[in-house]
């Protein structure tokens, strides 16, 4: 036996998207305030729909049955007497369902907006793209600010290192000159050892020696004089320098060494 409701709603049955959709339909149909759902009526109508679906041999999706259970549960909760007076405000058993329905309603409404917009914007037309031949264009630079900074830092570090290198080189030149000075001292001492008095400009002649050698030779001569190994004479300013071996100097040195030994023994 088919109820009137079954007849009226046969066409719609398959069109419900889900239990919310069906509930929403019932709320709209009965012009019910969504925030104050008369749960007894709604549950009854909902169950009628499920019954109608059964009569029509429609497969009832499990979600509809879950909702039926939820509605029945809420209904029973509301039937229970509120025995505890100390709880000021009992939680409305409908609350969770209402919140879900409100959320659902929002999206349902937006669905309609989407549908309208689709219709409106379906009326604009686009032009097919032209064939534009691909061309190789100026290369685009791919650069990074981080690398830029890194380059600056590295350039500076290298620059500093190079400056340190320069000072090392200078040191080496100085070291080299020191060796050179020693060798010139040795050279002069060698000549003096032969007991020969000699003219400086003859030995360190600009014809055979570099300017630096002559200058170093002069410094070596001063060293030798200081050591007491030679005495020098110059008769005119800028004239020749004559170097004479000094015997006493060596003796003085020997004495010094002996004294040192004595002190070591003490």
């Amino acid at each position: 036996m088919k109820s009137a409701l079954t007849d009226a709603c046969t066409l719609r049955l398959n069109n419900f998207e889900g239990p919310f959709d069906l509930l929403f339909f019932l709320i709209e149909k009965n012009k019910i305030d969504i925030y104050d759902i008369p749960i007894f009526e709604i549950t009854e109508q909902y169950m009628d729909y499920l019954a109608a679906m059964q009569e029509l041999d429609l497969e009832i999706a499990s979600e509809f049955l879950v909702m039926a259970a939820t509605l029945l549960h809420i209904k029973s909760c509301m039937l229970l007497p509120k025995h505890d007076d100390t709880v000021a405000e009992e939680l409305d058993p409908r609350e969770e369902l209402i919140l879900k329905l409100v959320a659902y309603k929002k999206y349902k409404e937006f669905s309609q907006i989407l549908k309208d917009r689709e219709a409106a914007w379906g009326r604009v037309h686009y032009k097919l793209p032209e064939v534009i031949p691909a061309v190789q264009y100026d290369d685009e630079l791919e650069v990074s600010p981080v690398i830029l900074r890194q380059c600056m830092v590295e350039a500076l570090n290298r620059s500093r290192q190079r400056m340190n290198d320069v000072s090392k080189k200078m040191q080496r030149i100085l070291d080299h000159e020191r060796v050179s000075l020693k060798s010139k001292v040795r050279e002069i001492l060698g000549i003096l050892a032969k007991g020969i008095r000699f003219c400086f400009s003859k030995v360190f002649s600009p014809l055979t020696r570099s300017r630096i050698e002559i200058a170093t030779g002069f410094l070596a001569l001063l060293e030798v004089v200081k050591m007491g190994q030679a005495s020098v004479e110059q008769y005119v300013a800028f004239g020749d320098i004559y170097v004479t071996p000094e015997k006493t100097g060596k003796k003085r040195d020997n004495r010094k060494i002996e004294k040192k030994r004595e002190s070591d023994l003490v």
Partner: protein
Amino acid sequence: MDNETIIEAVLFASGDPVALEKLAEIIEQDKKTTRGILANMQYKFEHSARGIMLRELDGSWQFCTKPELDPYISKLAAVRRKQGLTPAAYETLSIIAYNQPVTRAYIEQIRGVNSDSVLMTLMERNLIREAGRDDAPGRPKLYETTEEFLRVFGFSSLKDLPPLEMNEIPEVIENMPVD
């Protein structure tokens, strides 16, 4: 050469949307200036007896005909009209649009019904796409809307979505157990 002239020619030739960056590069202006020029053009096209208008699509720009001229264009040839979507599809699309990226479980929570096949349909129509996976247990797939979604529904960007008066929907929804 006038910048508006260049942009008109470029957008006409392209047919497809052209990114703001590309337009800026072509007219050799910065992005801000270029956006200003485009906004100005958009206004002028809109408010003059032009048959076409300028629309923004997710940071790209494109010409299209004004909707009110559709009846005349339809006379040109049979315009192929895309079939509309099912209510389930609009509903699902709404939920994705406002909550993207979003899992299937979340959608089903709101709709109260299995949404597997409707997601497939929306993917086929290129209105949504997968957007990685959620960190939640099981690492469920996430879904988001596409540029085609913006085009079909006439949005410039997702910022154009009308605000849902979500203040009416308390935070309970956010704390809703997912499945």
